[in-house]
């Protein structure tokens, strides 16, 4: 498993841990009504589970497992793919922090970073989506 995939999968596992903890607190609040503050974590729960966990895990595994290219860069442009993961996680981090900042454009910038990250990832792996010749 290449280094980039290892980083992405580990970050995805961390997102799963934090995201599911927030989700569990919300469900406990629904049951007992003793943790009203847990609802403030709903946005972060959704962001962590959908982008941080599921999306990032899938991308990390895809970077590892898709057919490799002949030549010096078998997994495509590693700088592009690395930048993609950095932007995705910067966007995720900003989305988690946005509700606590007075700046109204925080979530917009967060989503833009995430979209840009996903676009770069698509560009990086596009040539690897191909038929394997026997």
């Amino acid at each position, binding site marked *: *498993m*290449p*280094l980039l995939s*290892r980083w992405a*999968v*580990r970050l995805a*596992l961390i997102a*799963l*841990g934090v995201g*599911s*903890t927030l*989700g*569990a*607190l919300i*469900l*406990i609040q*629904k*049951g*007992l*009504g003793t943790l009203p503050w847990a609802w403030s974590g709903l946005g972060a729960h959704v962001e962590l*589970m*959908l982008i941080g*966990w*599921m999306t990032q*895990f*899938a991308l990390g*595994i895809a970077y590892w*497992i898709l057919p490799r290219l002949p030549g010096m860069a078998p997994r495509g442009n590693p700088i592009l793919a690395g930048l993609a993961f950095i932007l995705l996680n910067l966007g995720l981090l900003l989305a988690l922090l946005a509700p606590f900042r007075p700046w109204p454009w925080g979530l917009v910038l967060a989503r833009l970073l995430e979209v840009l990250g996903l676009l770069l990832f698509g560009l990086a792996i596009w040539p690897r989506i191909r038929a394997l010749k026997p």
Partner: protein
Amino acid sequence: MPTITRWLVKTSLVMLVAGLALGVYLHLPGISSGGLFPLYLHLLTFGWLTQLIIGIALWMLPKYTLERPRGDERLNWLIYLCLNLGLVMRALFEPLPPTALSPWRGVGLVAAAVLQWLAALLFIRQAWPRVKGR
């Protein structure tokens, strides 16, 4: 494909069908979504997508060791049990009105929260050492 993966993938497909069927029900004229909408979302994101990812990951990630390729198999089965028991308990208790079946609704939702959270933590524990180069 190992047995645990087959169980996780097949159960995830059952959850997909259950989630989609619930989605159809929620769109029937005159039906109030009530507490069913969060269940619909979790059947699809946790019961289907997360369970499918966990099943495939336990199979595909680099081997833990040659003797125990998927680590402690008992913990993998515990992931399966916690994830699905947690979701079933959620399905039983979350749609009920907050005052119904008191205090059992609260106890059931706390149990559902803890079980789903444990499933996530156990998967992280099992996957983390398998995220490696070779």
